[in-house]
């Protein structure tokens, strides 16, 4: 690249940046208040769109000059819908559990008057002497937001917001460097692929860079299929430009001409927002021909998947892009050498690509100074299940599971006891309490029998049956197995049937050994990651929770009172209140009736075990209980 082109690139980006800053001036000049509403999928499920509507109406009604902005997910999914109000003179305030009524009050009380409404606030988003800050919460001792930096703070459908917060500066910098220099930075940073296996990113890039054949492709793998994981969705919905910027830099480094962002079909909002982001980036010349005035050309297309878990595997993903069934094939050749249409194809996960601009912008040492010896940087987890603070979190590698679940996640709700944490989705495993002090990094988790996976973390408490969770994951992998390898196709089916028998109380004690043997066979006899890791949930539960398997088999008892064939609902006559019929009214199948004394009785034949009566029974009586095995229920005559 000659000097003239370099100075051209410089002025091009500076012009784009100053234009963007002019357009978003209103947001940052501190004159009018800014109201931000989180409208990612999780926020919407909690009613964020109704809140947004209420705020817009109230702003018009009160004749206020305020900017109402839709932003992505801040990660505090437990407190959705989330609203942030930045009023000049005060630090930005975040409000959680907002309803349309609360939203209207906030506009009236805080924006029109000066009442900051502390009763609804989660805290200020900046340190302040007078107002409690959200960063005083224990979770922020651990949290470090690298790739979630912009999530929840910018409008993902407006590229100007991203640029105003330093976006695309790394791309501008990259285009003035030589590709090997960028590659060296990524190598020094120690970045490993965030898709699950943790393969060193620089090695993959090197193979693709040196592979003969043109054109080369870069694919962003957004086929986040693990149930219980939603980090990639949140990033694509909240900060799509960070992924696009990472892709362009990657493509420049490996010499690719075309790119695809492969997004799961189940994420319609992510598809929508990535589409908008791609259009805006192209419009400003950040993708396409002669990017930022350089002589580098790269275009990106969006490809929406069609619902097949196995397509998260890179060779299957490529087959899907080629219009075929998503069947994986044997590696080598690796896609980096021969992939899409037989050309060198680099496939990286959403998070991996989102790290690239951050690393380039801040330097390799900034990234490698955080984390453990083998795993650098941060880990992004989706906390879900029986944990108080469900949502997204980003912590440095090396943070322990205990810190993540009990300090960041605030522990188990309703005073229940922790039982296990499921990490890595269907490919991962369940780790018990004794493993909680394991530091989170690629290698430690693998040694414990789980894996980092894409980052789903589902917390289980004493009410969750470990045999059932193993059966659940196997049911999933069995259904999603593409059917190519015999061991995976037939073996998972066999294992599933055995596990089904056990959860129905029809298991035999020798089944436990059969399960372990089959697990090893399936691992050995499968081509792709799906089959190789499918038995992990069974193996880890067998290792750590063998007593639960034995209780199901020997005593026909489910210790967690979860397996429906092994439990029965029963109303304790001595606790049941004669004048109350909360359960009778809510029973969805009319299985509950009152006897002569006014005590409620469940007709066991009609009961579908839907748990509604247990929830409906007022806490002062707590008369409904679950019994296992079901034979424990005393025989009573039911009035037909």
């Amino acid at each position, binding site marked *: 690249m000659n000097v003239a082109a370099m100075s051209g690139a410089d002025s091009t980006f500076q012009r784009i940046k100053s234009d963007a800053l002019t357009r978003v001036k209103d947001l940052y000049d501190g004159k009018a208040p800014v109201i931000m509403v989180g409208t990612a*999928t*999780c926020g*919407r*499920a*909690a009613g964020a769109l109704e809140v947004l509507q209420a705020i817009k109406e109230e702003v018009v009604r009160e004749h206020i000059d305020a900017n109402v902005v839709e932003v992505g997910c801040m990660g505090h*999914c*437990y407190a*959705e819908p989330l609203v942030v109000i930045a009023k000049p003179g005060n630090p930005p305030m975040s409000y959680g559990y907002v309803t349309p009524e609360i939203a209207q009050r906030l506009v009236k009380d805080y924006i029109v008057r000066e009442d900051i409404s502390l009763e609804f606030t989660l805290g200020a988003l900046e340190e302040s002497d007078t107002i409690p800050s959200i960063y005083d919460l224990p979770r922020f001792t651990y949290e470090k937001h690298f790739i979630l930096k912009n999530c929840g703070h910018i409008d993902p459908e407006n590229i100007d917001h991203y640029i105003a917060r330093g976006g695309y500066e790394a791309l501008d910098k990259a285009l003035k460097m030589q590709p090997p220099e960028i590659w060296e930075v990524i190598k020094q940073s120690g970045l490993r692929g965030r898709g699950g296996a943790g393969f060193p990113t620089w090695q993959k890039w090197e193979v693709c860079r040196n592979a003969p054949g043109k054109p080369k492709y870069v694919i962003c793998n957004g086929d*986040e*299929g*693990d*149930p*219980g*994981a*939603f980090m990639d*969705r*949140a990033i694509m919905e909240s900060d799509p430009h960070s992924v696009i910027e990472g892709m362009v830099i990657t493509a420049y480094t490996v010499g690719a001409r075309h790119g695809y962002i492969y997004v799961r*079909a*189940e*994420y319609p909002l992510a598809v929508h927002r990535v589409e908008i982001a791609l259009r805006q980036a192209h419009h400003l010349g950040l993708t396409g021909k002669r990017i930022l005035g350089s002589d580098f050309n790269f275009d990106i297309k969006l*490809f*929406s*998947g*069609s*619902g*097949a*878990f196995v397509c998260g595997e890179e060779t299957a993903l490529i087959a*899907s*892009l*080629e*219009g*075929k*069934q*998503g069947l994986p094939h044997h590696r080598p050749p690796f896609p980096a050498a021969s992939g899409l249409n037989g050309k060198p194809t680099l496939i990286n996960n959403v998070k991996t690509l989102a790290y690239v601009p951050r690393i380039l912008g801040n330097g390799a040492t900034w990234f490698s100074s955080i984390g453990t010896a083998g795993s650098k940087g941060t880990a992004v987890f*989706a*906390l*879900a*299940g*029986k944990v108080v603070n*469900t*949502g997204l979190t980003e912590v440095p590698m090396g943070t322990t599971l205990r810190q993540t679940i009990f300090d960041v996640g605030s522990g188990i709700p309703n005073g229940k006891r922790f039982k296990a944490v*499921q990490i890595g*989705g269907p490919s991962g495993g369940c780790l018990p309490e004794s493993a909680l002090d394991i530091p989170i990094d690629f290698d430690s988790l693998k040694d414990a029998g789980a894996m980092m996976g894409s980052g*789903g973390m*589902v917390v*289980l408490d004493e009410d*969750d049956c470990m045999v059932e*969770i193993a059966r*659940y994951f196997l049911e*999933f992998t069995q259904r*999603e197995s*593409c059917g190519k390898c015999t061991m995976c196709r037939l073996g998972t089916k066999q294992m599933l049937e055995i596990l089904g028998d056990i959860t129905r109380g029809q298991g035999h004690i020798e089944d436990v050994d059969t399960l372990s043997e089959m697990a090893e066979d399936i691992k050995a006899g499968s081509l792709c990651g799906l089959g190789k890791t499918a038995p992990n949930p069974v193996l880890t539960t067998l290792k750590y929770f063998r007593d639960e398997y034995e209780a199901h088999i020997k005593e026909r008892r489910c210790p967690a009172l979860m397996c429906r064939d092994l439990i029965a609902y029963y109303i304790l006559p001595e606790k049941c209140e004669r004048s109350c019929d909360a359960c009778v009214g*809510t029973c*969805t*199948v009319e299985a509950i009736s009152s006897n002569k004394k006014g005590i409620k009785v469940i007709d066991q034949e009609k009961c*579908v*075990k*839907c*748990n*509604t009566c247990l929830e409906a029974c007022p806490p002062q009586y707590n008369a409904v209980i679950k019994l296992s095995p079901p034979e424990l229920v005393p025989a009573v005559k039911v009035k037909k």
Partner: protein
Amino acid sequence: MNAKKLSQGTLDDVPRAYSMTEEQEDIRQETRKVLRRFSRQRGNLVPILQKVQGRLGYIPREAMVEVAEFLRIPEMDVYSVVTFYNQFRLNPPGKHPVRVCLGTACHMKGGYIVLDAWKRRLSINQGETTPDREFDLDTVACVGCCAMAPVTVVDDKVEAKTSPTRVDGILLSYQIEKDKEGEETQ
């Protein structure tokens, strides 16, 4: 499973408001409208099928034949792709699609109980449509709203923390809406 899907996929199962040939012709017309916007590359197969389903709500046999002809590939290849991916439907959808999430978090918080409640109330199994074509029921692996578990997606709206009683509530609200529409048309 494929054989079962195939038998459901034939037009014999489709309640006919007008003659078979007319409906077939209609499907072909609609499919051609979609095809006009694509080049004849195999890589376009999945996007084409997505657009066809977006227009028709499902992928009938006639549409598959049209697509195969357009891309110059065997009909069987189109069929194999349609049946491989979970998103594609071989039978016509209901007016309101009901998708029960059975992701890990939803399952552990009772997603299977919610699924049972839908089955009971709609009197259909997953993968089926109610006889009046109002609702169709299916499961989805994970919609990524794990923090709101268990969830059900009805008409693209994510219903958070669904329970059997909430299922009744949702159905009731649709019934009220339908009754209102009925009154207005009268």
